């Protein structure tokens, strides 16, 4: 098993050590990952010309994780390739390096502990559930899921400075990752497909523009807070009609952005706020997601918990900016956790646009089978989308998805 994995690692020729050496030494390797079979069934025929006419879609994915820690424990590394094959959409069939980094935590400067991380990594910022507004370091791997929670690995140099008064992170991001978009055959696409391999940039340096981010995070009693400044290439593209008139071309602007995330935790309440101010292509704009989560524990004397969620999404960007659907929307959700041996859980939510009544339904359920298999069911649907609204593009893409994942 280990030998096989090492051959795989060597195949990628990324880690500077041979597997035999690494395993023979006292440093530690942890190997894990999962493979998954995903089946999607669509309730309606595809809307746009060129899309695959099949109502079903089979897809297979794998993620392999190799983690290393030095004998002294102060250095670590990570190597996580990801791959997906999709029967219908060539663009969804893709590979990515989610992580490939080396980090040294044993550095000190004037009594402050510093960690230096070099390589590809994933970083998450934020507190809300219905949208991840302030999260900006990693590009969205949109072909994976329209919920935008899947991210592409981001090359970076990261310095983390832990003080008594909080954590300061400095990020230098030397290479930009283009957002993935479904191909002509795929579901969940705009009327014209996006030719994302042919992106255009405001910066002359294009994807080699050096982006920068500085973040502070800490907590004060019941309040957790994070704030950051980002300068560089917008992760959200504007989509322009390509010169051939048959495709859309992503255009990435240079932006300045400040972001804030706050959570107040009291009793069974979580109060959450994310907000950002962005100076980009058109004018500067602000956006926010704010709300709460309240949990009823051991409902009706069972072991189950039920959490109620409500969030409001607001965004005052102009129509010249990249399109957002979260401009004046209310999210209502419920989370049911059985707290059983199989960790059965269900999350149901609905997002309603207050201006247009566009409504997005989402149900996610999951349960472990045995020790190593997880079965996950998702149902997503859109109603009330008018033809001039962004969600209308996905209007006939209501679907049910069954995923069976084997972990190792």
């Amino acid at each position: 098993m280990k030998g096989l994995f090492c051959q795989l690692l060597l195949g990628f020729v990324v880690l500077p050590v041979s597997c035999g050496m690494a395993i023979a030494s006292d440093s530690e390797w942890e190997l894990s990952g999962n493979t998954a079979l995903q089946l999607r069934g669509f309730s309606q025929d595809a809307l746009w010309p060129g899309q695959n006419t099949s109502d079903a879609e089979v897809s297979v994915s794998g993620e392999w994780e190799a983690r290393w820690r030095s004998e002294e424990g102060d250095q670590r590394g990570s190597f996580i390739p990801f791959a997906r094959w999709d029967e219908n959409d060539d663009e969804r069939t893709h590979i990515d390096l989610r992580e490939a980094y080396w980090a040294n935590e044993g550095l000190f400067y004037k009594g402050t502990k510093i960690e230096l991380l070099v390589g590809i990594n994933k970083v998450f910022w934020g507190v809300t559930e219905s949208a991840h507004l302030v999260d900006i370091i990693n590009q969205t791997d949109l072909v994976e899921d329209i919920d935008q929670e899947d991210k592409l690995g981001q090359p970076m140099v990261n310095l983390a400075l832990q003080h008594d008064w909080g954590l300061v992170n400095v990020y230098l991001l030397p290479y930009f990752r283009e957002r993935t978009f479904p191909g002509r055959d795929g579901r969940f696409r705009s009327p014209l497909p996006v030719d994302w391999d042919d992106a255009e940039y405001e910066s002359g340096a294009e994807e080699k523009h050096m982006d920068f981010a500085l973040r502070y995070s800490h907590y004060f009693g019941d309040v957790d807070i994070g704030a950051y400044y980002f300068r560089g290439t917008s992760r959200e593209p504007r989509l322009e009609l390509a010169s051939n008139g048959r495709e859309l071309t992503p255009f990435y602007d240079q932006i300045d952005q400040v972001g804030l995330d706050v959570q107040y935790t009291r009793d069974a309440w979580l109060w959450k706020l994310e907000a950002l101010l962005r100076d980009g292509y058109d004018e500067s704009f602000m956006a926010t997601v704010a709300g709460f989560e309240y949990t009823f524990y051991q409902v009706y004397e069972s072991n189950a918990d039920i959490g109620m969620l409500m969030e409001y999404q607001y965004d005052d960007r102009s129509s010249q900016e990249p399109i957002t659907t979260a401009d004046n929307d209310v999210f209502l959700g419920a989370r049911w956790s059985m707290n059983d041996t199989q960790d059965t859980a269900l999350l149901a939510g609905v997002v309603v646009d207050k201006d247009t009544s566009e409504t997005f339904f989402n149900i996610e359920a999951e349960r472990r089978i045995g020790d190593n298999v997880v079965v996950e069911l998702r149902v997503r649907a859109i109603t009330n989308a008018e033809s001039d609204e962004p969600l209308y593009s996905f209007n006939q893409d209501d679907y049910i998805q069954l995923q069976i994942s084997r972990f190792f």
Partner: protein
Amino acid sequence: MKRRNFFSAAFASVLRLSVVGALGASQLLLSPVMAATSEESMPDQVKGFDIAARSDRSDRGFGDSEAEMTMVLRNAAGEEASRSMRFTTLEIPDESVGDKSLVLFSTPRDIEGTALLSHAKMLDPDDQWLYLPALKRVKRISSRNKSGPFVGSEFAFEDFTASELNKFSYTYLQQEACGELLCDVVERIPRYENSGYTKQLAWVDTTDYQIRKIEFYDRRGSLLKELKFEDYRKYGDSYWRSHRLIMRNLQTNKSTDLVYGEYTFGVGLTDNDFVKGRLARLR
């Protein structure tokens, strides 16, 4: 993809797995006399508190510790499932603040890398952060859920957390044999809010002052669970740790065993190892 959601709620409470090996352990060492002044006229209560305090004191000064633990869950039909985790604890010398602890799961594999950081408090709710590796997300969680099950086991969150001396009021009942030892039997009633228990009975041996057994009585006053502490081993001069805890639910016939590996003391941990910024850097 790794699982994203379930843990947020499943974990929504206090956890101090770190001290479960020595339920008598605590940072808070009220002088027994001080705490008992209001109960002076009731000698059984003073004696009960003294027994608990003596057990508690036997664990003072351990500094920090680290251990691997396997949790074996058994249903009424005898079917088993297991979880494994590593936990580290930092003792905080200041008696007005609680210990800090970190739990890192390694199995089941779909939750591998999930971690929970706790800063225990005395009277206020604990501060807790959960790390969800699939999103690499750190989430502050509520510590309101005392009586809910911990990761589907027969252990409630409060079974791990309620180890501080002053979280209970005590009454001495009697002395009786417990295996080869002699035990003091002490009744303890939770003083904290939202407990699932009306009372507990604890058997504390008179030789090493360690807890050997606890009975838990539910909100209706019926016997709910029985916890046995086995395989006590002594570290250094005075630190006892049970390496096998067996919790049996007498109403459902389900049970959960906690099996500990060797403890390591003096790891050299500091406050910086127990900050939320560490959670994404544990593996």
